[in-house]
């Protein structure tokens, strides 16, 4: 148990400084000083260029649910690193619980630039510009 917690904390720490893509317009859309860590159920994964989008349903303390959208690296980056459409479709079908972390949108809307994704097993990290875990 302690190992798992430490690993997740370590993972989050790494996500905070995870290398971003040399993103063109990052600072005009997202506020790097407001980093969000959100855990929720994957409800949709839009496999689109120039950036894909992962939608998670976050349950708030009062029981209400909020839909958050995480922008990801481009489809081609995901694909090169071993992500496939069937894989993300399965995450949606299963309603997998994931944790996203990244800077919040400057306009206050429910968007983040997701620098990384921790999957349901808690100890596995997917840097979104890295490969998915061996299955």
């Amino acid at each position, binding site marked *: 148990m*302690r*190992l798992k917690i*430490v*690993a997740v*904390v*370590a*993972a989050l*720490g*790494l996500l*905070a*400084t*995870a*290398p*971003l*893509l*040399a*993103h*063109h*317009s*990052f*600072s*005009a*859309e*997202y506020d*790097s*000083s*407001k*980093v*969000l*860590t*959100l855990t929720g159920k994957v409800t949709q994964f839009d496999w*689109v*260029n*120039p*950036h*894909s989008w992962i939608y998670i349903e976050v349950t*708030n*303390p009062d029981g209400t649910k*909020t839909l958050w959208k995480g*922008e990801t690296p*481009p*489809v*081609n*980056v995901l*694909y*090169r*690193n*071993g992500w496939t459409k069937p894989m993300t479709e399965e995450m949606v079908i299963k309603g997998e619980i994931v944790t996203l972390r990244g800077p*919040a*949108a*400057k*306009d*206050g*809307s*429910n*968007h983040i630039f997701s620098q990384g994704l921790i999957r349901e097993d808690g100890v596995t990290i997917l*840097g979104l*510009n*890295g*490969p998915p875990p061996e299955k």
Partner: protein
Amino acid sequence: MRYRSFRLTILVAGFALVLLLAQLLFSQPPAQNPGGQGARGGGRGGVPAPPAGPVRRTAEGKPDLTGYWIGATKTNINNGRGGIINPDTGMPDGKIPYKPEWEAKAADTAKNHMFDEPYAHCLPAGIPTNLGLQFGFQIVQDKNTLAWGWDTVGATRLIYLDNRKHVPDSIKLYQGDSIGHWEGDTLVVDTTSQTAGWWDASGAVHSDAVHVVEKFTPKDENTIAYEALVEDPVALTRPMTVTDTLRRNGITNVPLAFKNRPAGYEQTETACVEGERDTALYTESGGGFAKDGVPGQAAPPGAVSSPPPRGGGGRGRGGPPQQ
């Protein structure tokens, strides 16, 4: 007992950190991959490339530039690391020789008008800008044309090799109008008629009076020495020379998805217009249309944090955009 398990925990956490760091470092772009003519090399970074063979040739004996290529990513070309030749020293650590009013325009663009970046609107980036954007490009070369395709925006470019005339000046093209010819083993390409645009992804604006002469000189099978003489009489005090080294994409580091394919790496389709949603997120302070709000206002308590100041080290490439 307690002390021992604490030490073990630290050990494991440290090991996990090292593994994760290694994974992140090795998974960074660019994917180094073979040109479309057979995989070679393999293995992740650290495996030495086999010695490069001689320049590939077409049936007519010209250098054959067909394949996947990648140069330096120049998010900010004006930071002394953009390959611009400093005319006083001859070193590639120079800056853009802006006229004062255009220097001011560029600074204002970077601060207040990032929304105007062509890439954000799925527009091709222009020449040589497109060569400095991430993820590389492909060239298919026959006797009439060099047909290019980029990963970013899925942009294209056609270089015509028959010494034809340029299009009239009144036509403006995002990628310009490119006519090429061979001088020995160097492909010389003359480009006119570019729209106004940016030299990079950080607001280095240019006018539509740009004229570019590029020289592609293959050094060996996998390397091209690249040089672009750029004139912009409206924005610059003098012409500037931009340099780079283009390497075949995929000699040492085949991405996972292509590792077991005999033909190796392929550049896949980028459908930008139909998937682009970023423009809606640009706020007014960046020249966009969304109202500046409170970032993370709808997040559950505890979800918001401020990251510690960034230390150095540990990353070779990537990181937030250079400013």
